């Protein structure tokens, strides 16, 4: 599993990369703009990410904006449905507006609120078929 962790906080990045590196390679980006650059490079190398974990509130470009840009990028490449990148939002924002935006507009697969729950995270990744 190739994962991109998009998070501006040191501890959240360390937690996610430590937990997810057990299952494959993990790259990190500290904002949405950096994430989109990494995603574009991965598509260009024909080695896209299997999973992207987005925080929402980040400087430069937030996670919701980056998720929408990712989906636009995928549409242009004809990657929809099962071929689209699996996305999990991991954030301290728990208002319904953000949750609905992430699911309806961003078509994220899961929305987890902090504190990061190891079992929920791994459970979602298993249910997505990314790990066994």
């Amino acid at each position, binding site marked *: 599993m190739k994962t991109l962790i998009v998070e501006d906080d*040191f*501890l959240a*990045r360390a*937690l996610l990369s*430590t937990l997810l590196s057990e299952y494959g390679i993990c790259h990190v980006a500290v904002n949405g703009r950096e994430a989109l650059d990494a995603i574009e490079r991965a598509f260009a190398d024909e080695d896209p990410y299997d999973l992207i974990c987005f925080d929402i*509130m980040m400087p430069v470009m937030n996670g919701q904006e980056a998720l929408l840009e990712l989906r636009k990028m995928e549409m242009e490449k004809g990657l929809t449905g099962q071929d689209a990148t699996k996305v999990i939002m991991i954030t*301290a924002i728990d208002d319904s507006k953000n949750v609905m935006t992430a699911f309806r507009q961003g078509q994220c697969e899961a929305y987890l609120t*902090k*504190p990061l729950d190891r079992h929920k995270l791994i459970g979602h990744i298993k249910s997505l078929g990314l790990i066994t």
Partner: protein
Amino acid sequence: MNTMIHRRENHPEPILSPAPVTVQNLQRHFREVYGFNISQTEVMLQSSAKSLEQAFGDAAAALEQANARQLLAPVFHGLKGLFLNMGEKVWAAFARDVEEKLKGDVPVDLKGIITVLRVGLTEVLDYYRDKGKENT
């Protein structure tokens, strides 16, 4: 819950400080909640301290600006998430309360709050600085 009350002349309400964060509690949290080994736990402690230092730096820079409240709201939002991941629910509630007050235009003693945070987090910040000295 152990609390200390800091009274400030320019603030109508006292700032209720949660009990200080200890390195021992943090180590236990990362071991028990995430199942991390000693070296992984150490990484999490250092990452926690780095996140806190970053937040204090951002807060200090924000306080210099005319729109300090607007700039500080995301800092306290970030602190809320950080404290949740550190297993510090009371401190997370403290940060959330400040974030809400900043967004809601409620008067807050920002310098007093930063002081309360620094005092409550001294052990973690000192631990990180001491570790940094050991590694140089």
